[in-house]
Structures are given as structure tokens and as C-alpha cells.
């Protein structure tokens, strides 16, 4: 909880963050100062959330745009390989395509 109750009464606004992997609590203040800091932090969190949502949407749009081309590539590659194999070629060590030696079936 960012608002910590003090023994003397009243509340104190705190921020928790990670510094070099360790959780560190920063004591900001009470009263108006704490209130302002809390509002600023809430605004920043909202902005981060909005940015994250926009980035997610952008990524999804890019991926949706890429998907049919990816499918086309895989299919065309398979058909081309199939044509080569049907004609008696084989791929040498995932590289060059070579004609198979010896008797070919028709």
C-alpha cells in the first residue's frame, strides 16, 4: 500500500521501486505533498497503461499483416520443393539442390 499509517497519526505517501534488484521504499511525504505525489504517480501509471495497450494493438496489427505473407511463403516454398523432389532432386545438407544419381523412376 502506498499510504502508510504513522504511529503519531496521519498518513505518509511512499513509493516502492526496485534498485539493482532490491525492493526499496521511498518516503515522499504526508498531507498535500503526499497527495500531489500520489496523483502524479497515478497519472504516470495510466499513461504507461495506455502506451502499453497502444503498443500491443500496433504489434497485433503488424502480425496480422504479416500472417498471410508468411503462409504464402511457406506454401510456395513447399510447392517448389515438391516440384524439385518430383523431378528427382534432393537437397544436399539443407543447401544446394542436386539431381539424384542412378536409375530414376518415371
Amino acid at each position, binding site marked *: 500500500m502506498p499510504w502508510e499509517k504513522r504511529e503519531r497519526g496521519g498518513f505518509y505517501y511512499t513509493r516502492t521501486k526496485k534498485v539493482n534488484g532490491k525492493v526499496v521504499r521511498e518516503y515522499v511525504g504526508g498531507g498535500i505533498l503526499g497527495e500531489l505525489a500520489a496523483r502524479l504517480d497515478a497519472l504516470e501509471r495510466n499513461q504507461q497503461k495506455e502506451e502499453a495497450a497502444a*503498443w500491443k494493438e500496433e*504489434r497485433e496489427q*503488424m502480425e496480422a*499483416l*504479416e500472417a*498471410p*505473407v*508468411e*503462409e*504464402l*511463403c*511457406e*506454401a*510456395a*516454398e*513447399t*510447392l*517448389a*520443393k*515438391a*516440384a*524439385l*523432389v*518430383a*523431378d*528427382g*532432386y*534432393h*537437397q544436399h545438407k539443407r543447401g544446394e*539442390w542436386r539431381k*539424384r544419381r542412378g536409375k*530414376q*523412376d518415371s
Partner: protein
Amino acid sequence: MENKTHEIDEHETVTPARRRELLDELRGCIEQAQDGDKEARSKVREVLKEALRLARTLIDLADTAERSVIKRISDDPLVQEEVLPSQLRAMREELAGPEPSPLEKLLAERIVACWLQLQYADTVYAQNLDKMNMVQSEYHQRRLDRLQRRYLSSIKMLAQIRKVGPAVQINIAEKQVNTAS
């Protein structure tokens, strides 16, 4: 090996599910044929007989992909409907060459689709470079690398098919596979 090949009806369309099924079947047969299995090689030829219908759906797929990217590139109807499509058509024709086989046409189609996607991704990256954080920049760079690899591999395959010459054809116009050397 079970033979799942059906009678060919060139007017019947291949559903996406059937397309995936055919391609999976082909991939399996290719792998076996690569290991020297002659029966698998005959099966590859059998499955290739469905190439006419398959190629048609793939061209549709390329067309859909092209239109989606063009829409993102420009809002101008003239660019969307005339300028870019005619540039891409010219590029496709140049790549496919005179009297291309259906396979060459398909591979040229693939190169153009990959090229367009790469150009678009490159432009988006360049335009937003100053607004991106580290994560976004890395994502775009990885995407560009992937699209670049895909583009180069598409060129390589067309070159490979050209290299082996006219013997390798999926002669879908006559609904047969011509593998004569």
C-alpha cells in the same frame, strides 16, 4: 502409404483447412522422398496434381496481403487502386519473365509480397525511430531481420527453379505434373 489424393475439379476451391492439409501431406512426402523413398516421390507427384486449385488460393492470399499493406501505406485512392498495384504488377511480370510456368508465377508473386512487406516495415521503423523505446526498437529490428531473410529466401528459390531449368514444372494448366528431364 495411404493415398488421400482426390479427383481433381479445377473449379472447386480449396478451403484454408484443405490447403493446410495438402501442404502438410506434401511436406511429409518431401521429407520421405529426400531420404530416397520412391513411393513418397510418386505421392509428391500425386499431391501436386491439386496444384491448380492450391495455386489459385495462394494467389488470392497474396492479393489479400498486398491490398492490406497498400491500405496502410497510403490513404490516397489513386495510390491504393492505381499507382502501387501497377508498380507491383510490373515488378511481378519482370520477375516471372516471358511465358512463366505457374510455379514461376507463384514464386514471383511471393517475392513481390515479401518485398512490399519489407519496404513497409522499413518505412514504419524509420518514421518512428525517435519515438521508440528500447523494447519497441528491438522488436522492429527483429521483424526487419525476419522479413529480410524471408525476402532473400524467396529470391533464392526462384533462382533455384530457374537454374534447374524447364524440366521442373507444375504443369497445372494441363492438370499434370511434368517432370521429364
